[in-house]
């Protein structure tokens, strides 16, 4: 970790527009939770909470927050041209990359887990330790997503579009279809972690993937994506304005 790079990255990531957008998304989740709580008085609240945490928290908020922070942490600097000030320094590139990844992950965890915690609590997910389980799982999922999106931003300059496509098509549709593809879904890894941490009955919430598989594959994805990103940053070329 490099403190100077971390501080600059943090200020850059928490730019007003990006943060407001993500706070609104988190706020929306809390509003939905509130609406559920009021509208569904007496109904099966834990089940509602589980659905909300799964569909809004893990399937929507978590990947979108990580997408915006993960693609921006290095990608935005490359696009704007400020990256050259960080890269023309005697700082090993892997340190630069890990620092940027950690800052993106910290921001993602904050803007995902706080809404998940609040919304889960409001919607009545306090039973069976579900809220805490989802909060911890979402933190792990945010880290995996961030590693993927940081690598993506070093592979393509259209990381935002490709990332969105990946979230919608792979995570949203294909990965859920078969047991084989579930193994490689960050959403399923997250749900597997949440399932392990809660004692909620299957009728309320359960995840198809085993915890072991989720941890092994999830860690492998982080390591692989980070290695690819470091390699890309070592080989990166920055041309002048008139190549």
């Amino acid at each position: 970790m490099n403190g100077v790079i971390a501080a600059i990255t943090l200020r850059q990531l928490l730019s007003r527009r990006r943060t407001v957008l993500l706070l609104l998304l988190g706020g929306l989740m809390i509003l939905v939770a509130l609406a559920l709580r009021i509208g569904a008085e007496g109904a099966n609240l834990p089940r509602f909470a589980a659905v909300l945490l799964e569909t809004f928290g893990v399937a929507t908020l978590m990947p979108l927050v990580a997408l915006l922070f993960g693609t921006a942490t290095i990608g935005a600097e490359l696009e704007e041209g400020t990256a050259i000030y960080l890269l023309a320094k005697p700082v090993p590139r892997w340190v630069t990359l890990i620092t940027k990844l950690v800052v993106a992950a910290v921001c993602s965890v904050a803007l995902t887990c706080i809404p998940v915690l609040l919304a889960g609590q409001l919607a009545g997910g306090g039973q069976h330790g579900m809220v805490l389980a989802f909060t911890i799982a979402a933190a792990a999922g945010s880290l995996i997503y961030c590693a993927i999106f940081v690598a993506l931003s070093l592979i393509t300059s259209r990381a935002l579009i490709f990332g969105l496509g990946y979230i919608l098509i792979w995570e949203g549709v294909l990965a859920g279809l078969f047991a084989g593809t579930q193994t490689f879904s960050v959403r399923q890894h997250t749900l597997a972690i949440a399932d392990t941490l809660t004692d909620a009955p299957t009728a309320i919430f359960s995840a198809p993937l085993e915890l072991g598989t989720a941890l092994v594959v999830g860690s492998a994805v982080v390591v692989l994506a980070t290695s690819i990103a470091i390699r890309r940053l070592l080989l990166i070329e920055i041309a002048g304005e008139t190549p």
Partner: protein
Amino acid sequence: MTAAEGSVGTAVEVTAASRWYGNVVAVNDVTFRLAGGITGLLGPNGAGKSTILHMIAGFLAPSSGAVTIAGRPTRGHPELYRQVGLVPEHEAVYPFLTGRQFVLANARLQGMTPDQASSATERAIGQVALEAAQDRAIGTYSKGMRQRIKVASALVHDPGVLLLDEPFNGMDPRQRLQMMDLLRRLAAEGRVILFSSHILEEVERLAERVLVIVAGRLAASGDFREIRRLMTDRPHTFTIRSSDDRALAGALMGQPMIAGVSLDDGLLTVRTADFGAFSRAVAGVARRADIRLHELLPTDESLESVFSYLVRR
């Protein structure tokens, strides 16, 4: 030029370096060595100046040939950045940082302790005379101020090699003079300074040595006076409008410095091999022949034509 006196420690060497992007050749077989003093990289826009600077700075790999600083390739050796200060052409600087914070961050990233970094920052900001604005966010800076804070950030670790891509862009004449003075002082301290420019006068005033780049090739290199002479000795072409073009054509033909005269579609065009003698003589010739000159226009004075002349030479 002090090439022989320069230390090996910071010598910049570009050896038969080429760089292409797909089918487009940006830099073609360029060789030069810098070991001290100020060198100007002169050429029209798009000639490959930035590509050369970025190759030296390690941000572009040469497609063939070699680029080294102190004998080692810059690319893949980030520890070399301790000796290199880079001022990119790109204007982007973190808008949310103050000038001081930006320079300080650069100093810290160069591995200085907080104390060292703080005094180095003060010195560098003083060198570019931005003390008054150092606590303002860079987002509020003018183009010239932004350029100066970039120079301060490149100077803060006292590098032996300073690479500047179009450093005078956006500066007013006074800031330009100040920056030139600063670069001269830095060079006098034994640094290798390489700056690019597409403006002949900037290079003429500052550089001890010039590398002329045209269409990716090194068209000429060496002492500026020599290149200047090559540029002024080339044939010049003028179009002239006067009260009697035909009579003026006849009178000019008698002058020794005139290489050719033509009258096409009523347009008088004159070619001369000696720009200076022609410009001194033309008014006298017209006056003696009792012809009034309305207009005298050089037809090929664009920088591109000067460069292409150097390439064809």
